């Protein structure tokens, strides 16, 4: 470090610099304090201070430094505080940041894991397929050792989770890439009336103009000002298009830099009518010995460091140039005061043979054999065309040997995807922006056409229903002519992939040209196979720097051309994305009853039942159950499915979906029904009451509420469209509560008006409407799941809490107390009432659920009838029976098996200790031969212990005649 402000390698003010010299930022690097300027990246601030080594490579732990000085730089991946895998050449310095190198031990400088280099012959590509396998018992040791060498940073388990939102966007035109072509296309599209989303990977718009000459900077300022002034363009910087899916469903990742606040990455899901792909070109390395040494950089890295960050990349440089951008880098180097010792012009036969050094570059051997000592080697060997979005759109690019890169197959693109900029071809800035403007205007025209077609397909989109802003939605025939964009010229470029010596192809995965050749020799003789075996292109860069070089090595090894052997497939995501961004916020709907505040205030233990939160109990479920049998209890059963059915054909619908008969249900009566599916399997059960001539209220199980609504609508809409039935779900329009116990009538008489509650006037299995606790239009029906005198009340939901509290208050002297789901389970089991899905399963047909009395096979066709007829004829199926263990103190676990010798003959489906009887009671599914009352069966407990149990004469263990319900 030196005393010079900004660092030893900091240059004086550069015209295009993005740093703010008036603001300094202090941070630490591997524990040492450093200072950068606002606008510096971590790498530029460190490079300005003279640092050259930023990381150690994955496998061999070779020292690495700046290669591209962009997001994609493989040598600059660092840890910032608790955040691993930070792109150090893209992330800006922040005050107080603790930046460290990843997976180096004990330090970056002296990384003992570099011992791997000496083991290189054993650690060739794919070594893990051949080594560390035997003896097998030593695998835990191998794993522990290998884990130490994995290079992925650290995440503390104490990191607080970040809340990452998502966003949906619907731009007319999405432009991927904010360089000059992207900006020109966005402007043209916006001026043609389209809404535009312009997505740029870097922190600023401008692409390569940002580190260009004066003319470039002026053009950049001009375009950027126009974009800023155009209200129809929304600009997302530090954002990248992750993938393009069918129908231009496009994922955009906004990274931290763009957002304030606690959010980290945010995923934007965009449905764009048209997509303009303008990502430019990505400079790639050249393969030769020593090409990964710190000090070997690409020409764009050098130009970025000098022009954006005012950092001198070295003192003594050798340059390999194969294109005008390389030449421009030479000019920049000279202007920055770097000694340019030699320029090898690849267009004239120049070449780099090898680079040498230990921790850093020390010398370079060039084509004529001379060895030049230097600290900077600048490579301008050519470009990767990032065609991934085009590949994802179905257009496979073709390799052009003349241009030494892949060019898009424009004809293969769907009409909603366009290409412009450097990806489409070369030319002057004016030619490129001219092409881009044409592309943008065409994208807007096509978007208008697509938008019209979508809106025409929308329901309710008559001309008077939907109008676009500012005018009628007319169709202009001239809009339908699809414009053909002129082709851009593609300049020739020398093919410069692999030099004369062996070097690194994939910097992230530490794969060399030798590894690839060895893979081909072993039989992995295609780009795809060689990739999978060596893992080349499978690192964080996903092929951006290495795919073409890898293809060249493989093609050469096979003896074909790149065009023939092909490259690997570009797949989404384009760049790595955190799982948190993909997951987004956790949308998990939760459902509460109106009485929830009371449950919470009274210590209810919550039970999660689907999306519902229900009170399981309030501390002592057995006591709650006893209170129902002896006094009066209140349970919140709001989740019970309720369907309001109106129309002349309701009775026909009921006859169709239920197994029993419904034609003669009088107004004011209620009937229990069971539904079976078309395979005869028990689907649901519930109680349906007739409230009026053509008005019924159906109840279903809680868990089946949604499914039965769909079931009923499916029948009405697809099978019986001529029936007139209006089905309205009112599951949550009513707060439902069951009041049960010997004192129920006394309690209800205190709060009910307009209903005669005497047993003669309002018998069991009837329904009335009236006023409860001052609330009108309540529905009361007398049913008996618990087996006691009970009323199920359906109260307009907003008044549920009021009625509930009133009942408990008014009934306090009667012992009125709440009971929860667990107590209800006990009570109904004592009464032998089965629960669909608990005492039946996906194979239990009607006659196996003790429903012989309910299934009316003499009805006309009903859902499940044919299967039930067959089942009835064949009486060998399983049966639902009541069971009592001989030892009443043993409560068999539910699903305990019923055995005959070694043969499984059934299972216990429900099992509880009965507080009423003081002994265990069960329901079970058993083979028909065991179903006779009095049969002794053997139950195998989960511990393996065998106990005996007796089949009871009725399913009900308590009050089998049902007298208690009918008082």
């Amino acid at each position: 470090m030196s005393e010079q402000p900004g660092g030893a390698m900091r240059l004086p003010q550069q015209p295009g610099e993005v740093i703010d010299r008036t603001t300094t930022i202090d941070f630490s690097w591997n524990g040492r304090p450093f200072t950068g300027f606002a606008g510096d990246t971590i790498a530029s601030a460190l490079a300005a201070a003279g640092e050259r080594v930023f990381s150690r490579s994955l496998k061999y732990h070779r020292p690495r430094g700046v290669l591209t000085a962009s997001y994609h730089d493989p040598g600059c991946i660092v840890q910032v505080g608790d955040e691993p895998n930070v792109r150090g050449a893209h992330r800006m310095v922040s005050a107080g940041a603790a930046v460290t190198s990843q997976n180096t031990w004990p330090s970056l400088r002296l990384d003992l894991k570099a011992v791997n280099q000496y083991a290189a012959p054993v650690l060739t590509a794919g070594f893990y397929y051949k080594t560390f396998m035997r003896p097998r018992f030593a695998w835990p040791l191998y794993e522990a050792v290998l884990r130490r060498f994995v290079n992925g940073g650290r995440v503390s388990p104490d990191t607080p989770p970040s809340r990452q939102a998502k966003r949906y966007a619907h731009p007319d035109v999405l432009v991927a890439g904010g360089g000059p072509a992207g900006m020109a296309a966005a402007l043209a599209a916006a001026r043609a009336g389209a809404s535009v989303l312009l997505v740029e990977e870097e922190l600023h718009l401008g692409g390569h103009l940002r580190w260009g000459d004066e003319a470039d900077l002026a053009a950049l300022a001009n375009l950027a000002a126009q974009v800023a002034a155009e209200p129809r363009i929304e600009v997302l910087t530090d954002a990248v298009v992750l993938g393009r899916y069918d129908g231009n469903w496009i994922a955009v990742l906004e990274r931290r830099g763009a957002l304030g606040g606690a959010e980290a990455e945010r995923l934007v899901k965009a449905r764009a009518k048209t997509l303009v792909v303008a990502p430019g070109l990505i400079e790639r390395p050249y393969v030769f010995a020593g090409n990964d040494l710190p000090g070997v950089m690409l020409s764009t890295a050098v130009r970025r460091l000098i022009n954006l960050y005012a950092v001198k990349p070295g003192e003594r440089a050798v340059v390999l140039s194969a294109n005008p951008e390389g030449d421009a880098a030479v000019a920049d180097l000279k202007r920055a005061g770097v000694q340019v010792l030699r320029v090898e012009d690849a267009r004239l036969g120049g070449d780099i043979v090898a680079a040498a050094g230990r921790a850093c570059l020390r010398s370079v051997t060039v084509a004529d054999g001379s060895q030049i000592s230097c600290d900077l080697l600048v490579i301008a060997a050519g470009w990767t065309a990032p065609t991934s979005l085009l590949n994802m759109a179905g257009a496979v690019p073709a390799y052009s040997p003349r241009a030494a890169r892949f060019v898009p197959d424009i004809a293969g693109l769907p009409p909603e995807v366009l290409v412009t900029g450097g990806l489409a071809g070369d030319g002057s800035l004016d030619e490129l922006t001219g092409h881009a403007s044409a592309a943008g205007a065409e994208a807007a025209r096509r978007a208008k056409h697509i938008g019209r077609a979508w809106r025409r397909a929308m329901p309710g989109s008559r001309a008077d229903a939907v109008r676009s802003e500012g005018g009628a939605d007319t169709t202009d025939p001239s809009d339908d002519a699809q414009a053909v964009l002129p082709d851009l010229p593609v300049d020739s470029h020398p093919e410069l992939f692999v030099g004369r010596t062996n070097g690194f192809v994939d910097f992230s995965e530490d794969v060399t040209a030798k590894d690839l050749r060895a893979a081909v020799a072993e039989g992995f003789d295609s780009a795809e196979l060689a990739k999978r075996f060596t893992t080349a292109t499978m690192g964080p860069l996903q092929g951006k720097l290495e795919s073409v070089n890898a293809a060249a090595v493989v093609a050469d090894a096979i003896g074909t051309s790149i065009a023939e052997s092909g490259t690997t497939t570009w797949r989404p995501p384009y760049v790595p994305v955190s799982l948190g961004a993909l997951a987004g916020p956790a949308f998990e709907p939760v459902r509460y009853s109106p009485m929830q505040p009371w449950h919470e205030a009274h210590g209810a233990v919550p039970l999660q039942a689907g999306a519902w939160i229900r009170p399981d109990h309030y501390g002592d479920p057995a006591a709650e159950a006893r209170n129902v049998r002896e006094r009066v209890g209140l349970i919140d059963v709001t989740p019970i499915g309720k369907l309001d059915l109106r129309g002349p054909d309701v009775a026909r619908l009921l006859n169709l979906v239920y197994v029993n008969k419904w034609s003669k249900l009088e107004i004011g009566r209620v009937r229990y029904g069971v539904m079976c599916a078309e395979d005869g399997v028990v689907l649901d059960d519930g109680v349906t009451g007739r409230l009026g001539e053509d008005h019924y209220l159906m109840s279903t199980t809680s868990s089946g509420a949604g499914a039965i609504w769909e079931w009923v609508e499916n029948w009405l809409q697809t099978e019986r469209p001529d029936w007139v039935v209006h089905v309205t779900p009112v599951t949550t329009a009513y707060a439902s509560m069951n009041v049960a116990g010997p004192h129920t009538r006394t309690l209800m008489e205190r709060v009910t008006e307009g209903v005669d509650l005497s047993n003669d006037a309002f018998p069991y299995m009837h329904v009335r409407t009236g006023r409860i606790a001052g609330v009108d239009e309540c529905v009361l029906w007398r049913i008996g799941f618990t087996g006691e005198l009970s009323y199920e009340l359906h109260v307009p939901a907003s008044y549920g809490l009021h009625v509930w509290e009133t009942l408990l208050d008014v009934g306090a002297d009667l012992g009125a107390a709440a009971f929860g789901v667990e107590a209800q389970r006990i009570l109904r089991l004592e009464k032998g009432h089965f629960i669909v899905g608990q005492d039946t399963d996906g194979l239990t047909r009607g006659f196996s659920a003790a429903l012989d009395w309910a299934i009316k096979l003499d009805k006309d066709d009903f859902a499940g009838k044919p299967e039930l007829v067959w089942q009835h004829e064949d009486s060998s199926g399983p049966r639902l029976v009541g069971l009592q263990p001989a030892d009443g103190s043993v409560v068999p676990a539910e699903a305990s098996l019923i055995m005959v010798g070694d043969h499984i003959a059934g299972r216990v489906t429900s099992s509880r200790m009965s507080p009423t009887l003081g002994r265990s009671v069960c329901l079970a599914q058993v083979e028909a031969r065991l179903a006779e009352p009095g049969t002794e069966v053997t139950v195998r407990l989960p511990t393996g212990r065998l106990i005996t149990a007796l089949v009871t004469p009725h399913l009900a263990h308590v009050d089998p005649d049902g007298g208690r319900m009918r008082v």
Partner: protein
Amino acid sequence: MSEPLAHSPIRPPEPVVMSGWEVSGRRAAGQLTLTDCTPLTKVLLRADVAGPAASEVGVPFGRARRNADGVLVVGSGPGEWLLLGPPGQARQIRASLDEVTGEPEPVSVTDLTHGRALIRLTGERAADVLSAVCGVDLSDAVTPDGAAFRTAVAALATDVVRDDVAGVRSYLLHCERSSGQYLFDALTSAGRDLGIEIDGFQAQGF
């Protein structure tokens, strides 16, 4: 026995009583607001999708319009209309529908005042809030003022009506009642970074 007090599924900050409902007494300072409008009367009309009742109601599927009585009639589904009015108006609205006949097809009228949680989201940036939790295109070309659609908002089946207030973008969102608190929380969370505020119910616009 106390007078019946109606509760919304959405717990109100700073509760007060208005029109027999417990509502929030809070008043927002900014202009991006979320209001629990559950107390509004909601009546569901069902009739044949293209019959005489549909013509008489005169609001097509996918649209919402105020009628002469100031009731917002929403074409919420084929053959289905939801009428929204001030609190306590169920009887009047049902009576007005008694005159609507679908002869020979039957017409049914159901009071869903208590069955739906209803929320109003208002502000210039209301669409930015909604687009964090809803995938429908909220541009004027697709869902202008008066558009009605049924979609998933924060993974919950929700009806949405664009009902601008005095030229300011506004959406009515409603879902089955028991998920009301969840929907309200999802919208609050989505609007947090934009400074959304809870505004108490005052029957605005009805």
